């Protein structure tokens, strides 16, 4: 049933969906090119998503303290990607990263400095030399978000609209012409007409029970792209951050906070026997923190499986050998926040375990950030390909800058030549957002928790055919319980209704991840199959995902630019 309800119609040249680093860079660049921009976010502008959660590292070949070149950064990126990187995208990140990092420096983000005034670069796992810039103490994400937000506020071409939930991309004659959604503050349906649409919605960590990002990383962009007709790639590769905080309970801190501690102080990762174990799994960690995320995750979970995990089900991380003065000098105010939580690192180890952190897969784009749908662009973590089967630490913020800027520029150029501003809104485009239905009594927030549980157990770091098939059955069951229309009526901050839209997105994305994982009968990077434990050269290929009607269709595509990999 539909009732008479106000509909808001907006018009712009470029619509950017999502206001993390990638979305804000895209909006800034499109505005600079003279395009009118609407920067929309389901939450607060510049505070939502994963950027603000970044604790420390941003990888970039500045060579400010150790000689470096983008070819070395690229070689490390491709090696971490386990032969699956789209080398042209990876190359963009490495080549153009320095320009954006220096731009942020000019904008006074506050990169940590050496005594001689040069930008400080830390050594992070998977890198052959110190390459990661950061803002102390654990403030990289907030500083980046604040700096970009400050620039966006000054860019007159950009109109910022927060609390705007986008439900679908409008597609007319195969071309993206805007989006539909609703205003969270009052529930009103919204139609946005745009000559170009940029997806900058980040990843899908919310699909998993334990994750390191925010509650709005539901994979929105992947579902939007699929329903618009665009192609996704590498959806089976979900990165688990190996040492997410597990115990004791700690509030007011992000669970990935131990990463900076390990960069600066090393730390010892121990099993229940209080023995270091990471090197038992073919790694060579000796005093420094250098084992890549996929391998560290594998080592920790293997120990847990073997019955040598910590009481809460992870590993111990100890800094007990580090003097209190050194801890204080390295992390100042953070030490006080830990004390307020009853944690004294000189006296006790803490417990850590892998948590969902980042998505390597995503929207398939070319080097101009064009998707397979004309008028639709994508950037940041929402993109797939640049990181292959495993992302090198520090590359996420860098790719957000680079891909965001390129997407903004391409979208503004497209908007200049596009003539679709008068495209009619397709019939039925507002059916979902204006629907009024009786509340069926289903607790969709509970179903989301069920899905997160299923994904954690069956589509986590270790996978089997049996588990993946169980996940598909659970997803199908949840789809039936979701139904065709959202519960209730449009209204102010109706979270029960919001849950329905999120579950709709999450089920589609979860199915894309699970089906891709089922097809990859090997173990590579972040995708580990217990039933196919070895890497198989026959799988040096991308799995692609498209939607045909309501059905997910999987395909294969060759890995581009492998010669670059060999050169590097």
């Amino acid at each position, binding site marked *: 049933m539909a009732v008479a309800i106000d509909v808001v*119609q907006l018009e712009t040249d470029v619509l950017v969906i999502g206001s993390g680093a990638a979305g804000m860079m895209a909006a800034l660049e499109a505005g600079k090119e003279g395009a009118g921009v609407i920067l929309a976010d389901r939450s607060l502008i510049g505070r939502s998503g994963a950027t603000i959660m970044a604790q420390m590292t941003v990888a970039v070949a500045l060579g400010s303290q150790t000689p470096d070149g983008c070819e070395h950064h690229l070689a490390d990126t491709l090696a971490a990607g386990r032969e699956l990187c789209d080398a042209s995208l990876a190359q963009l990140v490495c080549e153009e990263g320095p320009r954006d990092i220096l731009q942020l420096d000019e904008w006074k983000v506050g990169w940590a400095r050496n005594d001689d005034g040069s930008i400080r670069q830390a050594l992070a796992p998977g890198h052959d030399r110190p390459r990661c810039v950061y803002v102390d103490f654990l403030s990289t994400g907030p500083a980046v978000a604040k700096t970009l937000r400050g620039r966006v506020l000054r860019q007159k071409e950009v109109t910022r609209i*927060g609390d705007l939930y986008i439900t679908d991309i409008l597609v007319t004659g195969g071309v993206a012409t805007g989006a539909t959604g609703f205003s969270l*503050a009052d529930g009103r349906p919204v139609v946005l007409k745009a000559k170009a649409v940029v997806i900058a919605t980040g990843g899908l960590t919310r699909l998993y029970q334990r994750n390191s990002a925010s*509650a709005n990383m539901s994979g929105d962009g992947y579902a939007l792209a699929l329903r618009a007709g665009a192609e996704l790639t590498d959806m089976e590769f979900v990165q688990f951050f190996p040492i997410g905080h597990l115990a004791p309970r700690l509030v007011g801190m992000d669970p990935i906070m131990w990463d900076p501690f390990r960069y600066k102080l090393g730390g010892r990762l121990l099993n229940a026997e209080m023995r270091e174990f990471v090197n038992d799994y073919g790694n060579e960690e000796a005093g420094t923190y250098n084992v890549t995320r996929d391998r560290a995750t594998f080592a920790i979970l293997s120990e847990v499986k073997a019955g040598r995990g910590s009481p809460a089900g992870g590993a111990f991380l100890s800094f007990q050998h580090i003097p209190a003065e050194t801890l204080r000098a390295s992390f100042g105010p953070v030490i006080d926040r830990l004390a307020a939580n009853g944690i004294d690192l000189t006296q006790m180890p803490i417990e850590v375990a892998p948590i969902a952190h980042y998505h390597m897969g995503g929207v398939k784009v070319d080097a101009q950030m064009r998707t397979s749908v004309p008028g639709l662009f994508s950037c940041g973590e929402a993109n797939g390909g640049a990181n292959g089967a495993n992302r090198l630490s520090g590359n996420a913020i860098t790719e957000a800058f680079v891909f965001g800027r390129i997407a903004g520029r391409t979208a503004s150029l497209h908007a200049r030549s596009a003539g679709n501003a008068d495209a009619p809104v397709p019939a039925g485009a507002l059916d979902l957002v204006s629907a009024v239905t009786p509340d069926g009594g289903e607790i969709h*927030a509970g179903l989301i928790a069920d899905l997160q549980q299923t994904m954690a157990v069956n589509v986590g770091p270790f996978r089997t055919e049996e588990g993946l098939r169980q996940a598909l059955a659970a997803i199908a069951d949840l789809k039936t319980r979701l139904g065709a229309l959202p519960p209730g009526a449009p209204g*102010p*901050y109706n979270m029960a209704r919001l*849950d329905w839209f999120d579950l709709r997105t999450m089920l589609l994305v979860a199915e894309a991840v699970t089906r891709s994982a089922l097809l990859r009968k090997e173990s590579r990077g972040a995708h580990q199959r217990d039933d196919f434990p070895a890497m198989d050269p026959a799988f040096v290929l991308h799995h692609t995902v498209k939607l045909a009607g309501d059905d997910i269709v999987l395909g294969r595509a060759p890995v581009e630019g492998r010669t670059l990999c060999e050169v590097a």
Partner: protein
Amino acid sequence: MRETATLIVRRGHADEESRTSTYEVPYTPGQSVLDGLRFVRTNLDSTLSVRHSCINANTCKECMIIVDGKVDYACTARLEPREMVLEPLSNKAHLRDLVTEIAPPDERLEHALKSGLGKAVAGA
């Protein structure tokens, strides 16, 4: 016996009469008030609206409410095994339950409409 916290939560939106809902949630030491509210939404009553983006990091700053009469972040205020009274911020426009209008005025839909980017029309 398992300890519980009792959350007494102000409910409703502008077009309704204000009321409270009372929820019993399991308590373990160290948990936050937001943990309790998330338990309610997942297990007891998903119509309860409380906004947050991050869950634990205290970076998004969206979960500011009134806990026992004092302004606090739900993600850092500790859950306690007793009755706790939770209300929306009193100095912001009330939207629903614990949610208030916290977006800066020039980042709201109304502002975009006033800037001439669009219009509100009567829908079908």
